[in-house]
């Protein structure tokens, strides 16, 4: 994008002053280099979101922003229902509650190095991944509904993990106000065989090593030390979330004239928070959040089983579980007064600062862990929420790198075998049912996550705590 389109307010803040139908300014957090590399459509999408009713303060974009359906990926926007505020399916994203959870293992790299081939095989055997894979759990309708309402809590009650896991999950493992009756039969059917599966595309399970610590007190609070082996899981609400998103998009579009919503883009489909369509979507979307939380909880259990088989002394303890495609009801200060807002984060991670009452006791002093996934072969980061971020971005930070190259281009550049062999030379083992999938997800097809994290840190949205490098990656 052309930086001259913005008012350069400070080093990392780029402002679009309100014009036309914009109700608030647009505000992008990025270095000039990241901004220049962004597609111009990000500008248009930030402007479009700024025109939606009830939006508060500014239409925001994180340093990893790129084009998305309706809202940019990396977009953050908060709406006040008392000012006609809307909820938007395009503002949450199709893979509802896609997110990352990380677990510490109590092991250092040297303890897994010898058995890492065996460990990779065990994880690949135990955690279903890839197109058409099914989980070991078949749910009848009543049980499925219990999962939609119970989230990770439901999974723990079924024997997947322990109660101590739950306080290390956003919403204590269960998104409240979910409504199973708002989820269509088709969405439920798409989930029937998919509980406890990773999916495909950019989703993965990774064994990683803490390569660098930036913030020892926060790292200590998170249980991270240098050379500690960590397991990270990146996946979401599978087919169910997508079906809910697609159906809501259609329903909201059809209802938009009735709500006098002039939508600049069909994918921006929205409905007033206090409307039948808005309430139905919120009920269903929260159920999808619970599905994602349950899914990551079941996969955690499977990862523990695989570790127990190969390295029995491993103790996989949940560090934290964050979702980066959500809309949540939160208290924020706007213009000096407290407001209850519906905060959309699409490809953006919640990042509560120190002292936030919703944080587990262990994190209260240092802020919320923000888990930023890389891709196989590149590094990932753990950050911590800040007080400045609470003010600047409704307590939100980046979520990853984003693709720099299309799947087709990646296929032309690399073969799957070549990627697997090259990473193996670098000590990283890949396990995937599809070599074509590996080629399309080649590390070189992604943007530089380190630049995104540095910009996030310098902008004060979250601060760097640790850098993780991959040892084993299971890809769908």
């Amino acid at each position, binding site marked *: 994008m052309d930086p001259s389109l913005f008012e350069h307010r400070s080093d990392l803040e780029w402002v679009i002053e309100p014009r036309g139908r914009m109700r608030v300014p647009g505000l992008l957090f990025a270095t000039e280099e990241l901004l220049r590399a962004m597609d111009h459509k990000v500008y248009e999408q930030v402007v479009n979101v700024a025109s939606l009713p009830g939006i508060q303060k500014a239409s925001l974009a994180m340093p990893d922003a790129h084009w998305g359906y309706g809202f940019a990926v990396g977009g953050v926007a908060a709406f006040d229902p008392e000012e006609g505020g809307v909820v938007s399916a395009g503002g949450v994203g199709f893979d509802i509650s896609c997110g990352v959870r990380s677990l510490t293992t109590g092991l250092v790299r040297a303890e897994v190095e010898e058995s890492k081939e065996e460990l990779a095989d065990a994880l690949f055997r135990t955690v279903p991944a890839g197109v058409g894979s099914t989980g070991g759990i078949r749910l009848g309708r009543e049980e499925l509904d219990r999962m939609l309402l119970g989230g990770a809590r439901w999974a723990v009650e079924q024997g997947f993990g322990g109660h101590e896991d739950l306080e290390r999950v956003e919403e204590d493992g269960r998104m409240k106000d979910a409504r199973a009756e708002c989820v269509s039969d088709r969405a439920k059917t798409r989930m029937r065989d998919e509980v406890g599966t990773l999916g495909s595309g950019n989703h993965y399970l990774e064994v990683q090593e803490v390569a660098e610590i930036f913030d020892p007190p926060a790292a200590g609070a998170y249980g991270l030390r240098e050379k500690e082996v960590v397991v990270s899981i990146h996946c979401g609400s599978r087919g169910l979330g997508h079906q809910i998103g697609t159906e809501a998009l259609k329903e909201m579009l059809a209802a938009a004239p009735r709500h006098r919503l002039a939508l600049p883009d069909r*994918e921006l489909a929205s409905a007033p928070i206090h409307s039948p369509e808005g309430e139905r979507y919120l009920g269903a979307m929260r159920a999808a959040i619970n599905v994602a939380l349950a899914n990551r909880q079941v996969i955690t259990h499977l990862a523990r089983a695989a570790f127990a088989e190969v390295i029995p002394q491993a103790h996989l303890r949940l560090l934290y579980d964050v979702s980066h495609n959500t809309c949540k009801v939160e208290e924020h200060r706007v213009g000096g007064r407290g407001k209850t807002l519906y905060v959309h984060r699409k490809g953006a991670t919640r990042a509560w600062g120190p002292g936030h009452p919703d944080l587990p006791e262990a994190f209260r002093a240092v802020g919320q862990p923000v888990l930023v996934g890389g891709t196989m072969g590149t590094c990932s980061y753990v950050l911590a929420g800040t007080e400045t971020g609470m003010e600047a971005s409704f307590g939100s930070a980046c979520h990853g790198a984003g693709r720099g190259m299309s799947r087709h281009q990646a296929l032309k550049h690399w073969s799957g075998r070549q990627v697997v062999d090259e990473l193996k030379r670098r000590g990283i083992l890949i396990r995937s049912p599809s070599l074509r999938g590996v080629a399309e997800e080649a590390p070189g097809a992604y943007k530089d996550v380190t630049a995104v994290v540095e910009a996030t840190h310098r902008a004060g949205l979250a601060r760097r705590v640790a850098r993780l490098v991959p040892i084993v990656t299971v890809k769908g």
Partner: protein
Amino acid sequence: MGQTPEAEWEHFAHDADIGVRGRGKTPAEAFAAVALALTAVVADPGSVRPERGVEIACAASDLEALLFDWLNAVIYEMDTQGLLFRRFEVAIKGGRLLATCFGERVEPARHQPAVEVKGATYTALHVAQDERGRWVAECVVDV
């Protein structure tokens, strides 16, 4: 009835996602071709055997809305039954679409499926006749 014309589909690049396009003498042919482009996002259609048929019916007020529903219905069958499709027989009449999709269950070792298609989108959703009078049906799909 529009069958699957082999050479009448293609993909187009769209940021992180991918666009599917089909062409044909009639909307039904273009719809059959664009569905084959959908299979090709996941795997080589040539590797898929048309062993069993699945019927799909949908209806919409215009051809673009019908394309959105059609592709999402195909994706639903792929997802819930673990299928890949090789051949499509499509009939469109008065806003109603009736189709039979022929394919088989995914076998990862043989099909090397790259990625699941999660849904068709409204982005670049377009159904029209080109300058030569051939029908083109296309949209971006989310993967």
